[in-house]
Every structure is written in C-alpha cells, then in structure tokens.
C-alpha cells in the first residue's frame, strides 16, 4: 500500500518509537499507534485473508467497524481488531486465516475456484454420507483466529456493579453534550466510549464549538464531568442493553491491567453511538487499498498517515469532501468521483460528477478504477463513502423499532423507548448538535448507490463473511427471501462483525431483486453483544471452586489433621474416609469398627431448622406425611415430606423440644429447599404471627457417637445428663451442658446401632470433638467417614432421598402406608396419594437385593429385567450397593416393580453387557429386630 506518514497526527507520540512484528516482519511505529495504523504506515497492504476464499484484504476502517483486520496477538487475545488494539513494543502479531503470512497465503488458490463455491456450497456438497466426516477439515481451512490451547487466558476480569441517573453511551459531540446537560441538571452521570479518550469525531472532523477547537472543547467537558464526580469510562464498549435499563460494558484494561465488566443500572440512557460508513458496491471493492473515506480522515488527522499518493475518492454523499480537502492539503493527488450529477462541491478539487465506479483492479493492492463511462483512473488508494448507517444496535436491543428515512437512506430509531434517548448521528442527525454550533449541521445530500443484480465482477457485500452480490442473488433464487433466512443462508451479517458495514447494502440488494422497498425487507434481529466480549469477563472471579463455593465444616482442620480424604456431598466438603492406603480397605475398616466398638462421626451439615410458635404442631402436621402433633415433648419421630404431587421430597427426623418448639432435621443437601418450602407454606396458609421458622443449620455442629460402646463412651463425658434408657431412650432428646455451653443430645441413629447425636454451637465444636477423641481412646473409637456411614445405613435399609428414591417415588413404595390410612388432617401431597397413579398395581417398591451368583457387589444402576415377550423390559433398578463388612457379603437396595410382594424371588439384573442374579429380600439386611438400637 502506498500510504505514507507526514508530520501530523494528534494520537501518536513521535518521541516514543517502538517496534513489533507482523507475520514475522518488523513494523516500526510510535506510542499511540494502533496495530492498524502502524501496519498502514509500515506499508503493509494485505492485513489478512478472507474467511472463505482466502482473498487478500486490507484495512477498511479505523475503529469498531473494521471487518478485515483481525489479528492474533501472541500471549494475547485471538481475533483482536487491529484498529482498536494499541501497538506495543515487542509484541508478536499474526494475521488470521493465512499461512505462512497474509502476503503469501498458500491457500490463496482457493479464490480461483470461487465460482464453484457459492453460498451454502459446503452444506449442499458434503451432505453425503455425513457432513461430520468433512467438517473438521473444512473448519481447519476456514475460520479466523487460532486459539492457543496451552494458554489459560486471563485469570479474571473485575466485576463492577454501578448505578446512576443517566448513562450516556458514546462520547462524541452529541454524547458529550448530553452528558454535560445532565450534569448541569444535577444528575449523576456515567459517560462511556469505546475509544481510548472521549471526543469521537471531534478528533478528526474539524469543528469549532463555543469558540473552542473540538479537542479543547472535549477536554473542557471531560474536566467538567470529572469535577462533578461523574465517571468517564474509556476503552469501554456498551455491548448490550438488558431489562430494566441494565447496560453491560466491557472495558479493556490498560497496560496489562485486567479487563472490567461493568453492569450499570441507569434511570435513563442516552445513546450517542454515532454512525458507521458503508462501502460502495463495485467490482473488486474488497481489494486492499479500498478504504472508508472517514477512516482515511482518522488515519490522517490522528496518526499522520496519508492513505496514498494518487487517491480516488468515490462518494454518493457530501460528507467525503472533508477527507478530500484534507488529503489535498496533505499533498496527495486527489480525484473525487461523485455519483451525484448535480452536487455542489468545494472549489479547488478535481471532481467527476454523475459517474460511478464500476470496478477496481489490482492484485494484492488496488492500482486503478474503471468508471461507469469507461474512464480508467490510476490510483494507489480508493476511498469510498456509500452513506452512513446509524449504530442502532442498543436501541433495537431495547425493543426499539426502526423507521426508514429516504432523505438519508438509513434506518433510524422510530418509536420512543421509555428511558432510552437516541441522539446525534445514531438518530440520523449528522454534524454537531445545533445547540452547540449553529450552522454546523452537515448536509449529507445522499443519493442511492445500491448494489444491483447481474454485475459481471464480484461485488462484495460482507467483507468479513465473504458474501458477494451473487450470493444474495442465489439466496433469492432459492427462495430465501426473508431477511433472517438470507442471513443464515449466506452468513451475511454474522460473526463478530454483525453486519456493521454490510447489512444495509445486503438488504437493499434483496429489496431490488424482490421488488420491495428496503423497509419492507426489514432488518435482522439485533442481539447482544455489539462486539465480542471475552468469556472471562462474564465469568469474573467465578471460576473453579468459586463458581459454586463449597460449604465447609467447622471441624475441617481437625479432620485434615486425621488425614481425612474430602469429597463433596450435597455442596458440603466432608470426610469421605480417613487415612492413607486403599480407600476400599479404609472404608470397610471404619464400618467394621463402628459395628464392633464405637465410632465418631461429624454430622454437622444435618439440617436444623427450628419451627417455633403456638401453631407449630399443626403446621408440621401439614408439612409431614406422618402425624407429628402427637409427638411428646422431648421425643423425635422419623417422617417423609412430600411434594404436592405426592412424591417423596425429603425425609428426616423431627425433634420436639417442647410444646411449641420443633427442629426439622432434614437431609443436609436439602436445607435450602426445605427452608423455602417451610416459609412458603407458613406464609401462604398459616397465621404468620403464630408460627416462625429459623434455619440454625450452620449455627450448630452435630457430632455423633455410634456403636455398641457408645453409651460407655458417653458415660465418661460430663454433659450433665442421665444416660439411662428411661430418661434418654431411643428417639428422645435432652438438654445438657458442655464446658458451660448448652448442648442438645438426641438418641437418633442412622447406623442401626445405639447413637448419640450431640448438637453444639459451631464455635465449641472443636473442643467437644477433642474431648470425644480423648474419651474414645479407651474404647478403641474410630472415625467414621461418609462412605462407611453409607454402608452402615444400607445394611439397615435406611433410605437416602435422591439416591434410593426418584421423582416418582411415593411413601407407600417404602412400606409406609399408615399415615395415608389413618391421618386425620390435610398434608402436602395428600390428594395425589389417592389418584389412579398412586394406586397402580405395578409400582416400584423399595427392597433389598441379595446377589446370589457369587460375582460380588451388584452394580449400582443395574436394571432388573423381565423377558416376558422376548424384548427385555426394565422392572426397576439398583439404587445402592456395597460390600457389608459385618455380614461379609454384598448388599444392595433397589426400586423393583411390585418388589414387596416378590420377596424371595430371583430377578435378573442387567448392567452394560453383564447379567447378574439376585434374590429380592427385605431392605433391612442386618439386625432386623432392631435390638442393637437399645444395646
């Protein structure tokens, strides 16, 4: 490319030279240069290869609209827009979709076959036998940047939640003006812009505002905002507008600082997002050297780069003339091709009126254009302006509807959206706000120059997605005339670009071919994000264990000192087993020790939801399947809680401390759900002043002593309680004192052996645990992890809800029919238990399964099968399965069709390709008479 640096440029600091590499070639630049401006000044004409045809592509734009110049930065982000990333000393930049370099791409040959690979070619051609056969190879050939999978990406992005009276998006003249008006009216304002400083077009379009130059006025307004304590966010793209005026902003971190994701809730939003210049449709309009006229002005005034020496400017409107005059002043040879025959144009310019560009020529760079009258103009840069498309993405995301304006040939915001104002070029008002600079409103004076069907050369509509006018014509021929179908069929307006430069030209061509008006074709739906946002920004610090923090035991350190191996159980990090060596041996030893002697278990996550008040008993009668109001104070009762659909939701023990005070000991993983369930029913159905709920789960730790020696061990610890079975029988609770602190001791057993559950305030748990450990030494007390506890409870046939139940389980399937038959009052789910489904004769029931084939433990999840009519049919499945150390044989639990009436029957169980045989037995495999509870 023939661009050259002059001595201007307000964005760069010539005292700070730097160098970086692009495709291995050294590029020299200055501090303040973007990668794009440095490439342009460094004579790089081909900045990348196109998505599909590997066409050479150069810079089109200077900002967020850039469709071509996506680059991978080593140790940085893939597919970075070169127009927005600052050049840094020593950085290694690579072009995308090109090998070995953009200049000499070895797949450039593909373009020679382009007429055979139009839109949808891949899908049509590689249908048989299977697209997936071809997909990896094709994806490897196409696509843009490359993700370095050895990199983990940014560790986190800061998350900022903020609220304000007015959020102004876009800090050009219209945005600055709106922000200043709001500040002066006493509002709290946030002003954001995706540029590195506020100012927008005032940095490259000449303006005098309130007697100051554009740059001076910008600095004054920014200072006024900051003095008022308002935020001016730069390098921050408002990428989405969400319900109730929430705007998402992705802010690039400066100098290696982490990115920030802002969630700003504003009472009102002003969109001053400007407009994006459109290309003109002519043959080979994608050649490197064909650039937006507005971008050329940016490069000239911000970076001191003159786009070429012999320049053709093609325009269908009046706004390109500022570029023309500036380039002439910079010493370039400029010819303006003005599509308008009757345009009034500035003096001193070479202007050809009433002609248009038919095609550009050149190989890796443009070298000439041919006009509609056959004239050939040599050129090393072709700057084009096909009009401006207001940036209405956020307005449309906010459910705004667009109107078409024939005078400016653009979609503009139509009906007002509450709390969302659109101003400036985004609203179709080009130039400066009239309040600021009378007479500075710029006259677009545009005429139509839409793409036409039937062009001989390839006319590019969407540069990023390689869509030509012919592809749109093909879509129409195949009847994809809806704009949404057009997009999906041709990929027009897809990907990171989202049609910023291409949409309107595509719609206009579709309108032309189908004989409709452009507004009747309509636009595709605008969805966030406006520009890609790194996923790391959405995640913030919520990664790994921070995604869903584990709940931790007060005794975690004590367990670690005992070499506990921790696993997650229902959100809690709990000891699975203790000690090194084979886990299976450790678990078996723990379970055996608990049966033979005594064991200590940390049951702290057990639910402890207090229900208090004069109506507490009748409330719990409604909550539980079982009758609870008859429970005597100081006693405990096991019960089910159902859903209104009559299915088992939770189980557990209810403790009645006194007449009006109960504790719901729900499953540890169901505490949040049970708490919400209790609150919902309390508030909806009961007198809210006569029953109260308090979740004390985390306040109290629960330490359990279980086993035949449990009573003896407890006898050595002074809790001020009597341990005799009259005062403290099975399923009773008493209050005691440990080192001056009130504790609760309950005879509740989940092992089938005599057990004492001691609930102590969490901050005293360590002292009690130490005391139990010391006392336990004399009895050979071991520690019991969750895995061994699971074996002990399975030996007894005790249910774990969610493991031994599923979403269809009803209490009767577990043999618990008495409440349904005898309970006098309503309870949750009652009506569902007398439905046809609840009474089905083939329900799956909870039973034990004893392996009889000598092949060891049954696989959990193995299906019981019945081969009645040839095709095997499932009759249920194994829910829990272990080796029982005390019985020295495998035990299992399962839900089996009509299981309770199949006792003694042999069933076949299938797991993967293996067939096992088991006898249906009672769920309780150990101590059926329950004598050990009292031993």
């Amino acid at each position, binding site marked *: 490319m023939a661009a050259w640096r002059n001595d201007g440029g307000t964005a760069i600091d010539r005292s700070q030279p730097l160098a970086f590499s692009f495709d291995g070639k050294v590029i020299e630049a200055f501090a303040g240069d973007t990668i794009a401006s440095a490439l342009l000044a460094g004579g790089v004409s081909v900045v990348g290869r196109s998505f599909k045809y590997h066409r050479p592509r150069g810079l089109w734009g200077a900002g967020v609209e850039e469709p071509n110049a996506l680059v991978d930065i080593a140790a940085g982000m893939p597919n970075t827009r070169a127009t927005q990333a600052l050049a840094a000393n020593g950085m290694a930049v690579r072009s995308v979709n090109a090998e070995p370099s953009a200049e000499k791409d070895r797949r450039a040959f593909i373009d020679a076959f382009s007429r055979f690979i139009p839109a949808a070619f891949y899908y049509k051609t590689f249908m048989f036998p299977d697209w997936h056969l071809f997909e990896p190879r094709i994806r490897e050939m196409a696509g843009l940047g490359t993700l370095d999978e050895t990199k983990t990406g940014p560790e986190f992005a800061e998350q900022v939640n903020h609220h304000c009276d007015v959020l102004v998006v876009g800090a050009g003249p219209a945005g600055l003006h709106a922000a200043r008006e709001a500040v002066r009216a006493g509002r709290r304002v946030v002003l954001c812009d995706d540029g590195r400083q506020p100012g927008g077009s005032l940095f490259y379009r000449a303006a005098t505002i309130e007697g100051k130059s554009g740059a001076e006025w910008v600095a004054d307004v920014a200072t006024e905002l900051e003095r008022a304590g308002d935020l001016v966010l730069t390098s921050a793209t408002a990428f989405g507008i*969400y*319900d*109730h005026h*929430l705007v998402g902003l992705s802010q690039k971190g400066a100098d290696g600082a982490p990115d920030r994701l802002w*969630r700003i*809730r504003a009472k009102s939003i002003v969109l001053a997002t400007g407009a994006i210049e459109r290309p003109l449709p002519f043959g080979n309009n994608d050649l490197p050297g064909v650039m937006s006229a507005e971008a050329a002005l940016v490069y000239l005034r911000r970076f001191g780069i003159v786009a070429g020496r012999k320049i053709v400017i093609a325009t269908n409107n009046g706004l390109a003339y500022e570029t023309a005059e500036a380039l002439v002043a910079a010493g370039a040879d400029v010819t303006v091709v003005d599509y308008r025959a009757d345009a009034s144009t500035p003096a001193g310019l070479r202007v050809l009126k009433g002609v248009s560009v038919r095609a550009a020529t050149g190989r890796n760079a443009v070298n000439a254009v041919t006009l509609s009258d056959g004239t050939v103009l040599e050129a090393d840069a072709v700057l084009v302006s096909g009009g401006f498309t207001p940036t209405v993405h956020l307005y449309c995301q906010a*459910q705004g509807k667009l109107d078409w304006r024939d005078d400016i040939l653009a979609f503009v915001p139509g009906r007002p959206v509450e709390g969302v104002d659109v101003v400036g070029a985004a609203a179709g008002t080009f130039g400066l706000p009239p309040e600021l600079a009378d007479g500075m409103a710029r006259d677009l004076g545009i005429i139509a120059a839409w793409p036409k069907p039937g062009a001989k050369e390839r006319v590019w509509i969407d540069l990023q997605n390689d869509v030509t006018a012919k592809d749109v014509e093909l879509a129409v021929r195949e009847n994809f005339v809806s704009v949404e179908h057009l997009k999906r069929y041709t990929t027009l307006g897809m990907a990171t670009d989202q049609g910023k430069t291409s949409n309107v030209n595509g719609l206009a061509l579709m309108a032309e071919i189908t004989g409709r008006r452009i507004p009747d074709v309509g636009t595709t739906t605008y969805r966030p994000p406006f520009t890609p946002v790194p996923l790391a920004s959405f995640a913030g610090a919520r990664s790994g264990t921070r995604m869903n923090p584990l709940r931790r035991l007060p005794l975690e350190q004590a367990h670690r000192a005992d070499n506990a191996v921790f696993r997650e159980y229902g959100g809690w990090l709990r000891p699975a087993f203790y000690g090194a060596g084979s886990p299976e041996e450790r678990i078996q030893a723990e379970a055996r020790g608990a049966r033979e002697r005594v064991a200590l278990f940390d049951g702290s996550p057990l639910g402890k939801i207090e229900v208090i008040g004069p109506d507490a008993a009748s409330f719990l009668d409604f909550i539980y399947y079982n009758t609870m109001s008859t429970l005597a104070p100081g006693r405990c009762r096991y019960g089910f809680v159902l859903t*209104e*659909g009559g299915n088992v939701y939770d189980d557990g023990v209810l403790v009645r401390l006194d007449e009006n005070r109960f504790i719901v000991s729900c499953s540890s993983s169901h505490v949040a759900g049970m*708490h*919400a369930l209790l*609150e*919902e*029913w309390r*508030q*909806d*159905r009961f007198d809210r002043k006569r029953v109260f*709920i308090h979740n004390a789960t985390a306040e109290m730790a629960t330490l359990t002593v279980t086993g035949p020696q449990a009573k003896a061990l407890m006898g050595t610890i002074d809790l001020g309680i009597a341990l005799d079975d009259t005062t403290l029988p099975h399923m009773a609770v008493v209050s005691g004192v440990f080192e001056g602190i009130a504790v609760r001791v309950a005879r509740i057993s989940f092992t089938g052996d005599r057990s004492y559950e001691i609930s102590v305030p969490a901050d005293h748990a360590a002292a009690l645990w130490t005391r139990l450990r010391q006392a336990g030494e004399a009895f050979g007390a071991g520690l019991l992890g969750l895995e061994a506890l699971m074996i002990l409870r399975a030996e007894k046939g005790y249910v774990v809800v969610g493991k031994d139940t599923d979403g269809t389980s009803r209490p009767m399937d577990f043999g618990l029919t008495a409440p349904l038959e005898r309970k006098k009052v*309503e309870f949750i789910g*009652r*009506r*569902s238990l*007398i*439905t*046809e489904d609840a009474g089905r004769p083939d329900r799956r029931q909870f039973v034990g399964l004893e392996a009889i084939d000598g092949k060891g433990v049954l696989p959990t999840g193995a299906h019981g099968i019945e081969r009645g009519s040839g095709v095997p049919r499932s009759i249920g499945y194994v829910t829990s399965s272990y080796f029982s150390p005390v019985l020295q044989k495998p035990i299992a639990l399962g839900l089996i069709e009509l299981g309770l009436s199949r006792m003694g029957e042999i069933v076949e169980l299938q797991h993967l390709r293996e067939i096992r045989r088991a006898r249906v037995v009672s769920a309780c495999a150990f101590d059926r008479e329950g004598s050990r509870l009292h031993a």
Partner: protein
Amino acid sequence: MQLFPCPFCGPRSESEFHFGGDAGNHRPEGFRDVTDSEWTAYLYERNNPRGAANEIWMHMACGEVFRMERDTVDHRVAQSFVLGEGGDNGGMA
C-alpha cells in the same frame, strides 16, 4: 437482569427471587371431596399469560413471600404487595 420490588427490601435483582407460581391458584381443600380434575388443575394447569401476569414470588434474601403484578411481554413491573394486603393473595404453591 430485571429489578423486582420486594415489599420489604425494595428493588433487588431478579436473581434473588424464587418464583412461586400464579397468584390465585388456590389449593382445593378437603382431599376426599376434591375431584381429579380440580386437583390436576391446581397442580399442573398454569395461566402462562402473554401480557399482564399476577404472580407469587419469594425474596430469598429475606424469605418473604409476596404477590407481584408484572407484564410478561415488556417486563414492566406494575406493583408488588405484602401477602394479605391489596386484594386476593392466596394460593401460591
């Protein structure tokens, strides 16, 4: 992310709330006399309105259940009410 007005805590992010169903979905009482179709309607038949909706929500932060009138199309929230105030409130579950 919508803002919902908890009658007790003021406007809060929707992620703090738990949906409780249509307001006015009263639980048919007296299980022996409740027909299958009445019970089915209570359990499964939902209004799913387009436009004005009258719903029960729980604010998980404070645990309070309340009724809210909002629009399912434009997501405008009209008003929220403490249970037992501002008309028919029951039948949330």
